[in-house]
């Protein structure tokens, strides 16, 4: 048995578009990114908050008074804010004013004050007992050198002591201001409290100056009243600014929106490559790894061991880790290891604040019950009024109205899962998904398997079994016009998808499609106003699928189908061919497949790497070199249909056995091949005579070869071929027949409307 190669290609990012039109990208290895289509490249999601705290001080005498705090926060290009910084020092404005009494009069008079205050200045009084109406911030009127009154005040009792009277300052000076490290920050906001309230902050300075370490403001409390109030703690005790705008989790691979919130799910367990670990050392070196800085604070473990280590540092360039304690296992240069989020973050869905896709308080976490048979977290889906969380082998359904932490509840839906976030799709109120057990449909009330007929493909008993090692690269796509959902999978021998399992949900039919190039991704978009499936291929190409009958070239741009004049190891030459010159070749032909569709070398598909003069060079060498009787087709798509096994009648009574094919005549020349199989044989029947296919007699055979060649541009659009009869009705006679029809596309759709087997009966 061959040793399968590990699939250690970079992980695909998951894209998710929030209702604000911004696309978010996550893979659980690097931080969440966002793209609003206006920027040249994606940028990090969330706003990194300030480090440290500002320092608050004041200057001069004026209208700003009270016990004040300040904080700083950052604002990004889209208007999203960060968490606020730590609070500044408590700043009690101005100088203390000595006095002897606060009169119980209207207005209140401060007696015995001997300061340099003038009418219109502001004082702040706190702690007054008895005459508590004096507490607060007041504009004063100087009566004489020993008295001033508080405008619009009225005493409410006899002052019994405890008060401090503070004169206001003319200017507040904010220093030690944090500077943003996040490149998308465009503004800094400096917030401060008003006199007498340490919870609600107001934006005092909103500046585009991102570098100044000190800024000043003369805004009084009254002037702040018109600015935005930012309470730190809400009326229900909830945090509103301190941790509310946390960064999106970087250890979850999937982001999904549900009822206005973003959910993060699918913890990434990274196991690629080896780790070289030395007993007693805190340093671990990676071999064939792609460790990221974001793995800091995650957990490192060796397979088979119960010892866990926290990762303190990651050196991305040198690919090494620093652990929180020395490695206690035996020294191993090829350690099989794993890196995963800490235990309290596994089986937990995190979610953002409602309507704020970049505000992720760490407390917004919803645990999913642990199930040891569930496998890894893989996908999440908002479906109907529920949020579904997929594992490899399980699915959980969550319902919530306002906040999952308060009113959320979760139920296990069924014992099926999803391969990854790109392997489910919702079609008209039904979700379709793929897991290791096959394809299934699901509604909110249950699930139904739909791929029972091809279960060997999933279970590993077929020679064409799915290579589950490559499962992170599987994906699916709904094609509304065809009413088909395709799951692109890698079969045995491939490490990226070259095949699709196509399920027609209207008829229940399943077929396997083969692609000459790897199909790494797919999406549903629009082309000319109609829904259009786009496929992502090799060489960074994106193609619109099923828009024509050829894979790449356009009819009329030169020779696409002909016979080679000569052929070499990796090329063919066609003296009669006319290929477009220059850049047009680059765009239209290089990278396209070329198919040998008739004659020697039939069935070979190669990729064109160059065309010079009349020589076509291909990437891989020919297995069987074409000759002058071969026919090549540039951009041709091979197709094949095979019937099931159909039983001959027990008593044939010398009935004729014929096969008849009716198709829609094509304008351009093309061929189909018909093959007959008997009794579970893997090889088709060979024909006994030579017969040349030509116009008006479109059937050709060659002695000793199995193909009945049919010219699709035949004007009748019909062939009828007798099936040779040497059948014995006794024990060892032929019992079953199967028919295979195949061909390679040219410029027309090949539409076979009928295939009839006369003289047999279905069984």
């Amino acid at each position, binding site marked *: 048995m061959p040793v399968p190669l590990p699939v250690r290609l970079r992980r695909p990012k998951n894209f998710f578009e929030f209702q604000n039109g911004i696309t978010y990208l996550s893979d659980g290895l690097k931080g969440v990114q966002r793209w609003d*289509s206006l920027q040249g490249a994606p940028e990090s999601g969330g706003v990194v908050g300030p480090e440290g705290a500002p320092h608050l001080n004041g200057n001069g005498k004026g209208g700003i008074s009270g016990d004040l705090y300040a904080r700083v926060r950052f604002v990004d290009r889209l208007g999203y804010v960060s968490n606020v910084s730590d609070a500044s020092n408590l700043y009690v404005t101005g100088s203390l004013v000595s006095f002897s009494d606060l009169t119980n009069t209207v207005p209140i008079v401060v007696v015995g004050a001997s300061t340099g205050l003038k009418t219109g200045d502001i004082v702040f009084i706190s702690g007054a007992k008895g005459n508590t109406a004096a507490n607060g911030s007041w504009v004063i009127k100087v009566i004489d050198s020993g008295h001033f009154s508080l405008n619009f005040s009225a005493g409410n009792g006899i002052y019994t002591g405890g008060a401090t009277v503070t004169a206001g300052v003319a200017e507040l000076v904010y220093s030690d201001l944090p500077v943003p490290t996040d490149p998308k920050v465009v503004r800094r906001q400096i917030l401060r409290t008003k006199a007498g309230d340490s919870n609600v902050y107001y934006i005092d300075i909103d500046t585009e100056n991102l570098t100044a370490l000190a800024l000043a403001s003369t805004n009084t409390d009254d002037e702040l009243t018109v600015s935005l109030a930012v309470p730190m703690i809400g009326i229900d005790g909830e945090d509103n600014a301190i941790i509310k705008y946390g960064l999106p989790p970087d250890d979850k691979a999937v982001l999904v929106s549900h009822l206005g919130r973003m959910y993060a799910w699918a913890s990434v367990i990274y196991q690629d490559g080896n780790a070289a670990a030395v007993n007693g050392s805190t340093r671990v070196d990676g071999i064939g790894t792609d460790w990221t800085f974001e793995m800091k604070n995650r957990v490192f473990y060796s397979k088979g061991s119960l010892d866990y280590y926290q990762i303190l540092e990651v050196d991305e360039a040198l690919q090494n880790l620093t652990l929180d304690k020395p490695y206690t296992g035996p020294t191993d240069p090829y350690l099989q290891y794993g890196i995963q989020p800490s235990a309290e973050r596994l089986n937990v869905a995190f979610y953002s604040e409602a309507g704020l896709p970049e505000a992720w308080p760490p407390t917004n976490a919803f645990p999913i019950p642990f199930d040891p048979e569930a496998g890894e977290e893989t996908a999440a889906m908002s479906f109907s009024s529920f949020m579904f969380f997929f594992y490899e082998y399980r699915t959980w359904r969550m319902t919530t109205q306002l906040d999952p932490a308060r009113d959320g509840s979760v139920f296990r839906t069924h014992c099926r899962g999803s391969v990854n976030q790109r392997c489910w799709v919702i079609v008209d109120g039904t979700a379709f998904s793929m897991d290791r057990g096959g394809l299934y449909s699901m509604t909110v009330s249950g699930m139904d398997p739909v791929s029972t007929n091809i279960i060997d493909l999933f279970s590993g008993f077929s020679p064409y079994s799915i290579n589950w090692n490559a499962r992170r690269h599987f994906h699916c796509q709904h094609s509304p016009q065809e009413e088909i959902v395709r799951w692109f999978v890698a079969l045995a021998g491939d490490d990226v998808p070259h095949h699709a399992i196509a399920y027609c949900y209207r008829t229940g039919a399943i077929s396997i499609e083969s692609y000459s190039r790897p199909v790494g991704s797919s*999406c549903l978009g629009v*082309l000319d106003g109609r829904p259009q499936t786009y496929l992502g291929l090799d060489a960074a190409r994106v193609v*619109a699928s099923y828009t024509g009958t050829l894979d790449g070239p356009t009819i009329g*741009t030169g020779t696409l189908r002909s016979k080679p004049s000569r052929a070499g190891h990796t090329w063919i030459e066609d003296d009669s061919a006319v290929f477009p010159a220059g850049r047009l070749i680059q765009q239209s032909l290089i990278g396209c497949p070329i198919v040998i569709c008739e004659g020697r070398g039939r069935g070979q598909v190669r990729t064109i790497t160059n065309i010079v003069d009349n020589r076509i060079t291909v990437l891989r060498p020919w297995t069987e070199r074409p000759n002058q009787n071969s026919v090549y087709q540039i951009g041709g798509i091979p197709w094949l249909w095979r019937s099931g096994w159909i039983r001959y009648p027990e008593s044939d009574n010398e009935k004729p056995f014929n096969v008849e094919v009716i198709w829609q005549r094509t304008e351009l020349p093309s061929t189909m091949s018909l093959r007959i199989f008997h009794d579970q044989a893997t090889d088709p029947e060979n024909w006994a005579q030579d017969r040349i296919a030509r116009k008006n007699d479109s059937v050709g055979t060659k002695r000793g070869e199995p193909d009945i060649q049919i010219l699709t541009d035949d004007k009748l659009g019909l062939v009828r071929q007798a099936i040779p009869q040497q059948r014995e009705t006794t024990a060892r006679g032929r019992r079953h027949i199967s028919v295979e029809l195949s061909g390679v596309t040219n410029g027309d759709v090949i539409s076979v409307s009928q295939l009839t087997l006369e003289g047999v009966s279905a069984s």
Partner: protein
Amino acid sequence: MPHLGRRQLGEDIPLTVRTYDQFGRSVNPEDAPTVHIVDVTGHMIVEMKIPAIDEYNRPGFFAHQLLLDKRFTTGRHIIIYSWEMGDIRGRLVDSFDIVRGGNNWGRNQSIHWLNQPHANFIFFQTSDGIVHKGRSPSIVT
């Protein structure tokens, strides 16, 4: 010298080596085998260690998939695997050719359609990890 075939930029090339001792037995060396890839001028393009495969708990099998990215150009390339076990120094050589075509960004491995009022966009990530943007797609004729 074994030849890994004709390749294009953007393909993942399988680097595989079996390390063995003086008796030809598969054994793990003291340190992971080192791979050097040089072009025909002798310019070294890649130097790296490759990890072990232990699918069947067999020693001496190492493999890694390497993206033919922007460091590579067309032409013949030589792969040199080397390892040490005590006094024994093992060495194996492979080669491959990079021919015209392909794209050093690699394979398209994730894609997203974004419909905006001012234009339609396709975001896609290639196997070098970079995310790209295409605007208002149309069919090239």
